Each structure stands twice: as structure tokens, then as C-alpha cells.
């Protein structure tokens, strides 16, 4: 490979300027001409029949243009199970479910009119725990489940309210347990948390009365998937739907799928062609968008005295909330690697995604990996303790290495896991506890260290298409459907295009995202974009480069193969002074307004699909991301407060296309992981109501809550990835809570099985232990 000029450099973001000046326009900022303002009415009951909705007073309110209920929107949608109505039909399934909506001339009017809508309910029993909701005899939350439109991969179970049952079957776990010297069984739980992207949710929609065409302006992380989902729901051909993506103020998984979009679309059918904006405020965003799956995990392992793992069995209940959304795929892709990145001959996993009467769970950065890691990685430390082994040593003995056959049947390559373990541990001076403990200020402060590691698959197979244009001024435009959600894709993809065409980065521009003109992309999820779209942009750039070389060949009187690119020019390899600016080549051949276009399409072929009975697959993922994080914590035995002293995070990214950006992703992931470990919990009370739907009561990590963070980039190249790159966005928070949990257990000698590690929980755990000892 030729020497890289831009890829691999810590270049500052291409979108930073517009973000620091306030010029950047986000979905929440967007104002359309002649726009109406929407307001949503939400269910106040967790599970109830709708007896009556009275919209009379709202309709009469001056300035109101439309009032709609489920009767006006007879459509349903969903990622893989079409169970979710645009507005509730006949019954509600959680507090916060959209029931009715108003469009009015201004925000105040919409709000006042929405408050006049009366809804009468007849309550039904509510299920608030996934483990309870799937017990035999539980009443169905979705009576018509069997009749819903579903994807082929959905596996149901003979249990109530289960919308997906994932099965992994490798070897014979019972035999594995019999052959083990030590068998340990534990139960771990994680509560519901929320993405809490700083930009709340909103959507704008307009229906053209003449053509019936629906246009939606929304900061959605998967515009093409949304387009398909909307078209399927409305029964319209794809070309009748258009999505335009303004900038997105963070998402972390919350802004995929459809949430505000259906309300805006349903209203737009009743406004005589005027566009309507529906905004959720922060409270509405908390209760009525998406959350991360609460989970209950049972884990049982058998291990030899030597530390070799023999068998592992897991049963996982994923709380789907009221609608399936992405629960089936979270259940599949979270349950599959939940037993950890280890060589284990006998493995059995049952993952159940279970409906409850709580806010809807969906994609959340990490996609099921944090839940599995919270259980598996603390369980590993408990095994190590019982074996009298160092937790790092136990992991090094069992972790995946190149050439291993993973327990799901895939031969692994490019495994940088060991290096992440060693580097993350070194960074917090693993094993040198005496130095650290000598610095303790008071006898009630206890210090400990812990680490945790993960592997994470990416959604596979998926397709990314791209186009790269060169215009007569030498400007390069990249058409890519990856959404800039803050992760830095516009910078990374610009670097890729600039690298392949050897133009300065300033010459590259990302085209705005409009599904009418941008080629298809599966989604901006799953840490898939650098790899998939990076490959697609690279191939499109190569395509246009080849065309340009062909065009320039007669102009430079040289064969195509004798030409080379540098500094925005094409030149003779042997005589670099014989050169033409690339724009000049385009201009000479195609005129001043001409441009040359290269196209591409990239997907990773998996061969056979995942076997639904065994969970086996030769290629479950295009690539795997590996990471280890290590924490040093200080716990106050008098208050239960956990203070982090430092945290390292070593991530195998394959190749860092932009190290500055990689560091930012790792640090941001860590902060989110620390928040989920120590503070975050979206509290749903016994009536099904969210008790803390505000930033005052839902504690995000602030600048004062975070320790010294040590991001470490490990590069174990992925041969198929662009320049060797894998992905990075999602794993950042996945091992964090387990690493902290292990540090706390190391400090106190107490294992805490439930998140978050709030002072109260830690305090009572200490009290219980002291009582036991006394």
C-alpha cells in the first residue's frame, strides 16, 4: 500500500467550525415555511383499554388545525415485528404511549388544546418485570401477537409475552459441569437507563396533497431503514417517501427507528399540505422515545482448577418494554456473545426478549454487550477468587486468540484482545496495589482495582453504497448515507476520499443527507460505518480515480498505469512535473459545470445465515471489536460512595483512521459507562410511571464525576477493513460497569450484583456483610 497521507492522522473535525459558531442546524432547530406546531397526548396508564377519547373541546380551540387519534392513523410499524401503532389503537401498553395529537398555528395553542383532550381508560393488570411477564399464566400484553407481520428470523417461545427467544447450543453443558472442579451460579441485574442525547427528539413531516408524497425532516440515524419502515406501514411505494436529515445532536441508538416520526406523519395527513413539526421536550423524550434494556442474567460456569473454562450456561431476560422495536435483534446479538470472549467447549444460552408495560427499549450504544459483560465479567472475577487466581491471569488463560473457533462456530482472526488486556492493566499499575493503598487518607476509605474485557460483533450482513464526485474546480463531493451523529463520520469519510484521491482535506465536502439523492446505506449503527461506509467511499473514490486517469491519459500523453495522484493533481509517475490539476482534467473534457462520478457498493458476505436452533454461524459478524477497561476505585465504607481514581480503556480499532477522534470516542464511551455504573437508573415505580424524567433527577455524569481517563488505541488490523479499520463507537461503555464492579469488590471484598453502584446500594451491601461477620 502506498504511504498514507491523511488516514491515520489526528486531523480536527471537518464539522467543528459550524458547531463552535452556532451555525449548525439540528433537527430541533429546523423551521419550515408555513409550519404548524404539533403536541402529543400521552397515555397515563401502564396497561389499559381505551374506552373513549373526547377531542371535541380541542377541535374547537381557536388556532387548532388538526386533532387526531389512533382512528385517524390505522397503521402499525416496527423493526422486525410490526406491533406498534402510530397512535394507540384500542389500548395502551405503557405510560408515555402516544394516544392523540394536535396541530396548531403556534406552540402555545397546540399545548393548550392537547390539554383539553379527555381519555377514559379501563385498567388492565400491568407487568413491570420481564421475568414476571413471561411466567406461565401471565396475561398477554399483545393479544394479537401471533397475527403481527414479522421478520423471518423471529423465534417465539411457548411462554407469554416473549417476542424473541434466542438459543445458543454448543457441546453439552451438563457434561461440562460434571467435568469441572468448580461450578458457580449467580444472578445479575441491570436497570433501565436512557440515552439522554443532548438534543431531544423531534420530527417534521409534510404530505403533498397532489402527489401523496410524504417528506420527513428528522435527525434519524438510519434514514433508509426509516424510509422502508414508513413505506411498509403506510402501504406506499418507496419513491413516495423522502427523508431529509438535519444535523443530529447525539443519538446513541435512540434516534433510529420511528418514535416522533409516526405522530408527525399522521398529523401531516390532516393539515391540507402544510408541514407540521412535532417536538418532544426532555420529559417526553424520557418517557416516550427509547430506553436501554433492563436485564436479568443467570450465569453458571464450570471451571478446572487450572483455570480452564469447561462450561457456561446463561439465561437472560431482556425487558423489551411495551413494543418490540429492536428487542429481537438486541436479544440475538446481545445474548450470542454474552458468555464472554473466551474459549469454552460447552455453552448454552437462552435469551428471552419479553414485553412489559414500561417505556420501549431499543438500540442503545453497545447493543446488548454491556448487559452480558456486567454479569460475565464479574462472574469471571468470582471464579478467579475461588480459584485463587489473579483475574487478569484467568482471562489471559481463556481469552480468544487468532485462529480460535468461537463457541458460535466462527473461526476468529485479527483478535487484539490480549493486547488490550495487558495494556489496560499496565496503565493502572495492575498488581502494584501496595503503592496505591499507601496513599489512602482515612481508614474508612478502601481501594481496589478491577478490569473487564469484551468482544463485540457488528450487524452483518449490511449494505453501504456511496458515490464520489470530482467537479471542474477540483472539489470532491462525497455522497454517503452515514449520519453525522457526533461520532465524526464526516471527518473519517472525508479523510478516506482525500486519501484515495490525494487531495487536500479542504477540497472534500460531504453532501447533505437526503434519501432522494444519497445512495442507500443500511444504518449508522453497530459501529459499522467506518468499516462498511469507509470501504464504500474508498471504492467509489477508486472508481472515480480510475475514470479520471483514463480521461487524463491522452491529455498527458501517457498510459493510465503510468499516472499517479498527488496534491490534487494527476501526474506522470516518472516525471512528476508533468501534471494536471484533477479539476482541470474534468473541465477540459466535461466543461466548467461538468463533474465525474464514481460509484460503489460494499457488503460483507456471510454465507449461511445464523442457525436459529443452535445460534451457530460461520460469520456472525463482518469483524469483531475487542476492548479491555480497568478501574481503580476508592470506596467510602461510611457512606457507600464510590470514587473513581483512574480508568484505562484499551480498544482494538484495527486501524485508527483518526486517533484524535478515536480518543474522543473512547473517552465519551467511558463517561457513559461510568454514568451507567454509578448513577444512571430510569426509575419506573410500581404504577408504571417514570419517576425521574429530568436531568435534575436522572443523573448523567458531569465534569466533576469523572476520573482521569487513559484511552489506549490498539491496532490489530482487519484485512477486509479500509486500511485495516474495524469499529469503535459502541464498545466504549460496554466493559465499564463490570470493571468498576470488580474494583469495588476488590476494595470491599463484597460482590454487588445489581446496578447502579449508588452510595445507598453500596452502603447497604457493606452493612449486610458486617452484620454477617458479626
Amino acid at each position, binding site marked *: 500500500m502506498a504511504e498514507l497521507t491523511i488516514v491515520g492522522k489526528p486531523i480536527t473535525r471537518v464539522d467543528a467550525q459550524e458547531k463552535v459558531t452556532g451555525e449548525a442546524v439540528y433537527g430541533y432547530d429546523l423551521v419550515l415555511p408555513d409550519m404548524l406546531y404539533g403536541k402529543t397526548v400521552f397515555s397515563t396508564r401502564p396497561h389499559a383499554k381505551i374506552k373513549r377519547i373526547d377531542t371535541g373541546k380541542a377541535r374547537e380551540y381557536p388556532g387548532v388545525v388538526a386533532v387526531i387519534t389512533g382512528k385517524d392513523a390505522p397503521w402499525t410499524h416496527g423493526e422486525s415485528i410490526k406491533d406498534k401503532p402510530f397512535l394507540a389503537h384500542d389500548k395502551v401498553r405503557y405510560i408515555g404511549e402516544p394516544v392523540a395529537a394536535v396541530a396548531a398555528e403556534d406552540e402555545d395553542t397546540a399545548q393548550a388544546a392537547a390539554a383539553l383532550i379527555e381519555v377514559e381508560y379501563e385498567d388492565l393488570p400491568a407487568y413491570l418485570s420481564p421475568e414476571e411477564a413471561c411466567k406461565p399464566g401471565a396475561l398477554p400484553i399483545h393479544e394479537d401477537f401471533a397475527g403481527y407481520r414479522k421478520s423471518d428470523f423471529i423465534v417465539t417461545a411457548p411462554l407469554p409475552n416473549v417476542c424473541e427467544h434466542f438459543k445458543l447450543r454448543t457441546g453439552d453443558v451438563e457434561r461440562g459441569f460434571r467435568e469441572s472442579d468448580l461450578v458457580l451460579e449467580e444472578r445479575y441485574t441491570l436497570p433501565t437507563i436512557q440515552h439522554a442525547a*443532548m438534543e431531544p427528539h423531534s420530527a417534521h413531516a409534510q404530505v403533498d396533497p397532489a402527489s401523496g408524497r410524504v417528506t420527513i425532516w428528522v435527525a434519524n440515524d438510519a434514514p433508509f431503514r426509516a424510509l422502508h419502515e414508513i413505506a411498509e406501514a403506510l402501504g406506499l411505494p418507496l419513491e413516495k417517501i423522502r427523508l431529509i436529515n438535519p444535523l443530529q445532536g*447525539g443519538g446513541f441508538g435512540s434516534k433510529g427507528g420511528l418514535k416522533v416520526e409516526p405522530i408527525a406523519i399522521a398529523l401531516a395527513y390532516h393539515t391540507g399540505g402544510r408541514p407540521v413539526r412535532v417536538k418532544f421536550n*426532555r420529559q417526553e423524550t424520557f418517557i416516550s422515545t427509547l430506553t436501554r434494556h433492563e436485564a436479568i442474567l443467570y450465569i453458571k460456569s464450570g471451571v478446572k482448577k487450572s483455570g480452564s473454562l469447561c462450561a457456561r450456561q446463561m439465561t437472560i431476560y431482556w425487558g423489551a418494554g411495551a413494543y418490540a422495536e429492536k428487542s429481537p435483534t438486541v436479544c440475538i446479538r446481545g445474548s450470542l456473545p454474552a458468555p464472554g470472549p473466551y474459549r469454552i467447549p460447552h455453552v448454552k444460552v437462552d435469551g428471552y426478549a419479553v414485553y412489559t408495560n414500561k417505556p420501549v427499549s431499543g438500540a442503545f450504544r453497545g447493543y446488548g454487550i454491556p448487559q452480558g459483560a456486567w454479569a460475565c465479567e464479574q462472574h469471571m472475577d468470582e471464579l478467579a477468587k475461588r480459584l485463587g487466581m489473579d483475574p487478569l491471569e484467568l482471562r489471559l488463560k481463556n481469552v480468544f486468540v487468532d485462529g480460535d473457533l468461537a463457541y458460535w462456530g466462527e473461526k476468529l482472526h485479527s483478535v487484539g484482545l490480549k493486547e488490550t488486556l495487558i495494556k489496560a492493566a499496565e496503565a493502572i499499575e495492575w498488581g502494584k496495589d501496595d503503592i496505591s493503598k499507601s496513599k489512602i487518607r482515612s481508614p474508612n476509605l478502601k481501594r481496589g482495582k478491577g478490569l473487564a474485557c469484551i468482544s463485540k460483533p457488528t450487524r452483518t450482513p449490511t449494505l453501504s453504497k456511496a458515490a464520489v464526485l470530482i467537479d471542474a474546480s477540483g472539489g470532491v463531493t462525497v455522497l454517503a448515507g452515514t449520519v453525522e451523529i457526533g461520532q465524526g463520520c464526516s471527518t473519517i469519510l472525508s479523510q478516506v476520499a482525500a486519501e484515495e484521491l490525494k487531495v487536500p482535506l479542504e477540497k472534500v465536502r460531504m453532501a447533505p443527507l437526503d434519501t432522494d439523492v444519497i445512495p442507500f446505506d443500511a444504518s449508522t449503527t453497530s459501529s459499522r460505518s467506518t468499516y462498511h461506509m469507509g470501504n464504500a467511499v474508498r471504492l467509489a473514490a477508486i472508481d472515480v480515480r480510475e475514470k479520471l486517469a483514463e480521461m487524463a491519459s491522452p491529455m498527458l500523453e501517457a498510459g493510465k498505469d503510468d499516472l499517479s495522484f498527488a496534491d490534487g493533481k494527476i501526474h506522470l509517475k516518472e516525471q512528476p512535473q508533468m501534471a494536471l490539476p484533477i479539476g482541470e482534467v474534468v473541465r477540459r473534457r466535461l466543461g466548467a459545470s461538468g463533474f465525474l462520478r464514481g460509484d460503489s457498493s460494499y457488503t460483507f458476505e456471510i454465507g449461511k445465515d445464523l442457525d436459529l436452533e443452535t445460534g451457530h454461524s460461520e460469520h456472525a459478524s463482518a469483524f469483531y471489536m475487542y476492548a479491555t477497561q480497568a478501574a481503580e476505585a476508592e470506596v467510602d465504607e461510611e457512606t457507600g460512595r464510590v470514587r473513581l481514581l483512574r480508568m484505562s480503556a484499551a480498544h482494538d480499532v484495527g486501524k485508527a483512521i483518526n486517533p484524535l477522534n478515536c*480518543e474522543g470516542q473512547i473517552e465519551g464511551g467511558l463517561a457513559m459507562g461510568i454514568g451507567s455504573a454509578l448513577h444512571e437508573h430510569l426509575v419506573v415505580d410500581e404504577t408504571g410511571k417514570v419517576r425521574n424524567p429530568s436531568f435534575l433527577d436522572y443523573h448523567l455524569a458531569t*465534569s*466533576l464525576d469523572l476520573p482521569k481517563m487513559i484511552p489506549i488505541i490498539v491496532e490489530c488490523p482487519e484485512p477486509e477493513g479500509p486500511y485495516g479499520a474495524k469499529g469503535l463507537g459502541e464498545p466504549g461503555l460496554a466493559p465499564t460497569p463490570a470493571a468498576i464492579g470488580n474494583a469495588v469488590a476488590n476494595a470491599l471484598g463484597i460482590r454487588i450484583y445489581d446496578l447502579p453502584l449508588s452510595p445507598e446500594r453500596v452502603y447497604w451491601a457493606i452493612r449486610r456483610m458486617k452484620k454477617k461477620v458479626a
Partner: protein
Amino acid sequence: MKKKIRITLNGNVVSPEVPAHRLLLDLLRDEIGLTGTKEGCGTGDCGACTVLLDGKPVNSCLVLSGELDGADIVTIEGLQIGRELHPIQQAFIQDGGAQCGYCTPGMLMMSKALLDENPNPTEEEIRFALAGNLCRCTGYAKIVKAVQDAAMELRTRHTARQ
């Protein structure tokens, strides 16, 4: 009830007529059309809407327009010095202080307020000053670094002028 108020906004005198109960945040975003100031919560908990009111940082979602007559307001759109970026803006670009960018305007205004008061803050002082400005992307490390770098640049400029 609409009320005519006279304010200095980013150095220019403007006299909007607004309902007295309109929040400063909505006045800026909806009535005047300056959407650089962001709405993150509307309840004063996240700092995304921070602007300078008579030189002091405030959550503009907690200020009523009716009380603003005679006020001097600086928003993110007024942070640049002429056509040049303010050193804090420059530092956020250089250090990777912005990711999704939604908290960035509020962070910048709060940072400016800090550095106006305290040109040489410690890391702890920076973290304390920014504790009411939530960021979900960066983990704050690069933001803190940017404020440190901006402080140094501003001090260098100040010394050069003397």
C-alpha cells in the same frame, strides 16, 4: 400580553415585541431566529442554552423576556471577535472539544464567563465551572483541555498587549 423590550443583543440594539412570559431561549430561537443557543431540557438542568446576561452566564430557559428591558445579551453568535473565532472556539476545534456539538454553544459561553472572571483557572476550577453543562459525547476531557488551552492563549494575548 405583548411587551416591547429594548435589549443589546451581540452588540446590536434590538427592540422586539414579545409576550412577557416568553422565555429568553424561545425569544432568541423562535422570535429572533438565532438557533445557535440550544434547548436541551427547558428546565435549567443541562446548560445547553447558556448565554451571557449582563456578562454573567445564565440558563436562557429560566429567564423571562418581560424582565429583560435594558439587558445586554451575548449568545454564541456574538462570541466571535470580528470575523475571527474567539480563542475558546479555536481551542474547541483544535482539541476535539465538540462531537455532536449540541452542548457546545452552552459550553463555550460558560467557558467564556469563567475565563472573563478567572483568566488562569486550575483543572478543578474548570470542571467546577462546567459542572452545570451536560455533555453526553465527550466525557469532558477534551473540553477541559480546550478551556485550558484557550486560557493560555488569552493570557498570551493579554501579555502581548501590555
